[in-house]
């Protein structure tokens, strides 16, 4: 989950370097480098991430998207997020609760085998979840809802997963990151057998890793014989690699380049709506944001259209202060919040701040446009008397020195489901409760919603909780940015969706 919550240092490096290079883009130079060879059946992917931070342990910190992509090729996960936000089976075929919603029987496939020939058993799956539980500090407590000590293996294909409270969203909790490794694996310095759709070959090293199709995989046969995954920190370099024919898919490319190539028939632009947002974080236990009227005034002072057009070059959509607008439970019928300076000024006066106030707004250059956004927000807030001085912090210390410490800053969220955000930032006592959200009634209603077995009813209650958070909480979500990928025209089978959904590329195919 790491890569969705905060940037790896490599990304930050890439972005700081971006300023220097904005050269024009040549289209498919005729050199040897452009010799994509469909006959060899290798699809080459330049993914965001850093070759220096490439990890081999699937259960700890996954600093870059390239790490998740490599894990998703090598190992099977229990469930998968669908493009529409629903949960899809993968290694787990069923997850059935008892009446109390605290004991879940998870059934896994009986036809999956590790690359060393051993069958994948329930004991391997539970071992992997327990290992994730032990590494809670490095994976943002992904297994926090489970009591793994009381969970137990039932037979070769079934295990019982015990939750700490009634928890109806177990399928969702097992999405994406639950990479299953053979029981007992703990040293990932050497290759560990996986049961995923591809297998890493010894070929490659720091530059790129070559994966071969696993013809014994239980799932739909991957069209590509091989996939080459490369971590490229610089977004500009990823885009240029695609445009010069050195890769077939470039993840996370700059909007400026996409705009230049909208009409280029040799490439295809893949847009993933609502992938990232930089919420304006107001800490509710610090002045002046302990006054609800001030928080509302800030939300009313934002010119969301101007921010969207300037920061994301229009590649995105307006924010409505909902923290997870792409979650299937997010309420869709709320009116769009618009700028209302008169009302915002009145609220400031009611809060005793008619004369304005001096504040420091922290931001960084970790992600493209974060600094621009802060400057623009500061200008917009000046219209209601908030004199916000923008202070840019170094990217490599921003998420330890500013995140969840300062009262007023720009945060980062990337394609995360609502319940993950709740676990990390909206739980009283969590060290990452960045807005100091401590609403007992809200948390009690959340527990009740999670104990509701009926999905439609549960979704509607979760939606209502998000609406309350929108109006009472400490977040101002002004815009959502699309995630932009560039693909070779002949490439298909690119996964839709955001977050973990985007990392499962086993069905990509190169035609022509």
């Amino acid at each position, binding site marked *: 989950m*790491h890569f969705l919550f905060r940037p*790896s*240092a*490599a990304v930050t*490096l*890439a972005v700081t*370097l971006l300023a*220097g*290079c904005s*050269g*024009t*883009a*040549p289209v498919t*130079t005729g*050199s*040897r*480098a*452009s010799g994509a060879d469909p006959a060899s059946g290798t699809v*080459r992917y*330049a993914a965001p991430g850093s*070759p*220096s931070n*490439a*990890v*081999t342990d699937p259960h*700890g910190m996954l*600093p870059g998207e390239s790490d998740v992509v490599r894990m998703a090729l090598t190992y099977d996960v229990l469930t998968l997020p669908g493009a529409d936000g629903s949960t899809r089976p993968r290694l787990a075929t069923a997850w059935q609760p008892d009446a109390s919603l605290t004991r879940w029987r998870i059934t896994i496939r009986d036809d999956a085998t590790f690359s060393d020939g051993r069958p994948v058993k329930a004991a391997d799956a539970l071992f992997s979840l327990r290992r994730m539980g032990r590494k*809670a*500090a*490095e994976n*943002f*407590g992904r297994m926090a809802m489970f009591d793994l000590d009381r969970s137990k293996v039932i037979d070769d294909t079934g295990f019982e997963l015990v939750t700490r409270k009634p928890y109806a969203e177990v399928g969702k909790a097992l999405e994406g990151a639950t990479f299953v490794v053979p029981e007992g694996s703990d040293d990932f*310095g050497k290759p560990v057998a996986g049961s995923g759709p591809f297998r890493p070959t010894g*070929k*490659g*090293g*720091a*530059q*790129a*890793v070559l994966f071969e199709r696993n013809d014994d995989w239980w799932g739909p046969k991957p069209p590509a014989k091989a996939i*080459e995954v*490369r*971590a*490229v*920190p*610089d977004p500009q*370099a990823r885009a*240029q*690699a695609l445009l*010069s024919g*050195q890769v077939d898919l470039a993840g996370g490319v700059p909007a400026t380049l996409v705009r230049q190539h909208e009409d280029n028939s040799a490439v295809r632009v893949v847009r993933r709506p609502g992938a990232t947002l930089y919420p304006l974080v107001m800490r509710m236990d610090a002045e002046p944001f302990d006054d609800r009227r001030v928080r509302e005034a800030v939300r009313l002072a934002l010119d969301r259209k101007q921010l969207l057009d300037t920061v994301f070059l229009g590649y995105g959509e307006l924010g409505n202060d909902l923290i997870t607008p792409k979650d299937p439970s997010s309420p869709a019928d709320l009116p769009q919040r618009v700028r209302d300076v008169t009302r915002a000024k009145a609220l400031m006066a009611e809060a005793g701040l008619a004369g304005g106030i001096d504040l420091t707004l922290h931001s960084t250059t970790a992600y493209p446009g974060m600094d621009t956004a802060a400057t623009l927000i500061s200008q917009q807030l000046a219209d209601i008397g908030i004199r916000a001085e923008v202070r840019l912090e170094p*990217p*490599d*210390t921003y*998420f*330890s*020195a500013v*995140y969840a*410490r300062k009262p007023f800053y720009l945060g980062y969220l990337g394609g995360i489901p609502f319940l993950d955000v709740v676990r990390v930032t909206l739980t009283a006592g969590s*060290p990452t409760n960045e807005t100091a959200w401590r609403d007992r009634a809200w948390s009690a209603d959340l527990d009740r919603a999670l104990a509701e077995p009926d999905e439609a009813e549960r979704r509607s209650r979760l939606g209502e909780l998000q609406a309350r958070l929108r109006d009472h909480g400490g977040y101002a979500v002004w815009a959502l940015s699309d995630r932009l990928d560039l693909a070779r025209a002949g490439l298909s089978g690119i996964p839709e969706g955001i977050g973990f959904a985007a990392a499962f590329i086993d069905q990509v195919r190169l035609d022509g």
Partner: protein
Amino acid sequence: MRRLPRGRATAVPRPARALVRSGLLLAAASAVIFLCTAALPGDAADVLGGRAAPEDVARLRAEHGLDRAPHVRYLDWLSGMLTGEPGVSLITGRPVAELIAQRAPVTLFLAMAALAVSVPLMAALAWAAVRGPRRLRPVVNAVVVAGAALPQAVVVAALVASLSAAWRLFPPVSMLPAGVPPWQRPDLLALPVLSLALPTAAYGTVLLRGAVADVVARPYVRDAELRGLRPVTVLLRYVLPVVAAPATRLLAVVLGGLVAGTAVAETMFGVAGLGELLVTAVATRDVPVVQAVALLAAAVVVAGMLAADLVAPSADPRTGLKAAGS
């Protein structure tokens, strides 16, 4: 790096003195590197745990031994380096030796190729700045000073814009295919090599032209010129031997800079090398990796200087004459 007074040379042989001095230099460099990494704000536990609960971060810190006293960590690291075990990365858990071994070929290739391009260029520019046509000298001087001062990112952008975007000579990025050694794809690495070589040549010229000017002003060179010897003969017989020692030292420093200073070019061209490794490791406070790469660069510089010290006597015609006469 002045040589000790010649009178003491009889007590300890010259190569031995040079070796001892290199050892001391490397030890000093290791201490400076360690102090620099220790002075960075925050540590790897902060990066790994993010804003996890303080007790979790403390546990991570203890697991990685980051809670020990600095002098204990330093001695531990030093003994590891001396026994050839530089440890494991705090962030990825992978052996530091493996991380370096995977990246050394491409970075050394870039550094050597850049050196091969910049050395002749440096010599030509230094000569042009001192002895070139009179009207050309200020131009050359201005160009090398500007070239040495340009940020590398600007050099990269300019090279990409001209040689790749406009003239389509080379690809704009350098995605080496998996498992292909760098020397098999020089076409991919041409631009990174040039973007390292051009600023290096400019910087080297700035340092070298002083030494060249100093030598050509010496009486015996003037004398040779007045005797009507051809400029090439003067250069080869009277100037080059004297400049060789400072030039070799300069090359050692430049090579060290090339080994560790490739980060900007590597990142912008998408090459996974030692420079990118160093910069990322600094950002993630991955101390064992930072220390190993930095010490490797220091070792390259020290080894180069040692080589310079050893070749200096044979290259200096005056020493040779003295030795012959004694």
